[in-house]
């Protein structure tokens, strides 16, 4: 599960959960690999990303590195920034671990890179 995906997951569907985002990460196996960098593409994705959630996730995976606190002005042309964003979004993967609802503590297992977000009838 890449952090781009984590950025799209929430536990709000659970009864009584107000936000459920971002999910906390308990990491057991993390993989870092290389993915082709496409500046234009990353620039298009940045507006859709919750930057704060991405930073927190990277930190929980032990890969905060020098990810800036906020998206800079004129980010579309800031290659250094976009490369860092690309690395965080695409090159760090949680293979095994748990995603945790920040309000209820409910754990969603991640196995072989796939998060299991199935909720039981009595949870929703």
């Amino acid at each position, binding site marked *: 599960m890449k952090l781009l995906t984590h950025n799209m*997951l*929430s536990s709000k569907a659970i009864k009584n959960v107000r936000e459920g985002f971002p999910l906390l990460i308990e990491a057991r196996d993390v993989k870092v690999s290389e993915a082709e960098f*496409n500046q234009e593409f990353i620039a298009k*994705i940045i507006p859709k990303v919750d930057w704060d959630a991405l930073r927190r996730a990277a930190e929980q995976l032990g890969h905060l590195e020098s990810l800036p606190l906020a998206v800079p002005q004129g980010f579309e042309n800031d290659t250094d920034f976009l490369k860092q964003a690309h690395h965080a979004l695409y090159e760090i993967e949680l293979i095994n671990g748990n995603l945790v609802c920040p309000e209820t503590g409910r754990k969603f297992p991640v196995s*072989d890179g796939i998060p*299991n977000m*199935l909720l039981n009838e009595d949870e929703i």
Partner: protein
Amino acid sequence: MKISTPNTPHLAQPEFQDVYEPAEDSYLLLDALEQDLDTQSPLLVVEIGSGSGIISSALSSCYPEAIVLATDVNTSACQATLNTASLNQNKNIQVVRTDFLQCLWDRVKGKVDLLVCNPPYVATDEVELGSKGIEASWAGGHLGLDLTRRIVENLNEILSPNGISYLVLEQCNKPDEFIEEIRTEHGLTCEKVLSRRAGREFLTVIKIKR
């Protein structure tokens, strides 16, 4: 838009026996997409019920610059989708095990540029619903429209302003009546893209947008 059929040799392995193997409905959807999609890349592509992953993989190859989110309730299907992506060099597919975008909803609603689904379209009793195994790939409840209708009811919320959805219908779904329902009850534009007879089934791919 030329679409190559992804390779799926791994589906013969026993661990994937619970996964829907690509059949005429899958190929019809691929043909319809090939015929109808244009070259302008969507940003966010979502598949509900990816099964073997053949559709997501094809879309991923078509649009290497899109984010492709493949979802399925069946854990073997999720794994199969990941394998299909890997085999076909699709770097932009993400797989999430979930029921109908649950847990993705809040973050993707209003942002989906392309939503595809080859749904469980066989008419069955209500009691056959709720499985997370192979039955989930065909058991469609009343008129076989359980999931299909759920998608249509939520399309206005799911799709981005210019977003499009492609769904597969079978004649037991009463396509003409359903298309009318899509237009009148949901104020959406809907047209048939491609139809084909496949054994005892008569399949139609429809395209829906605002």
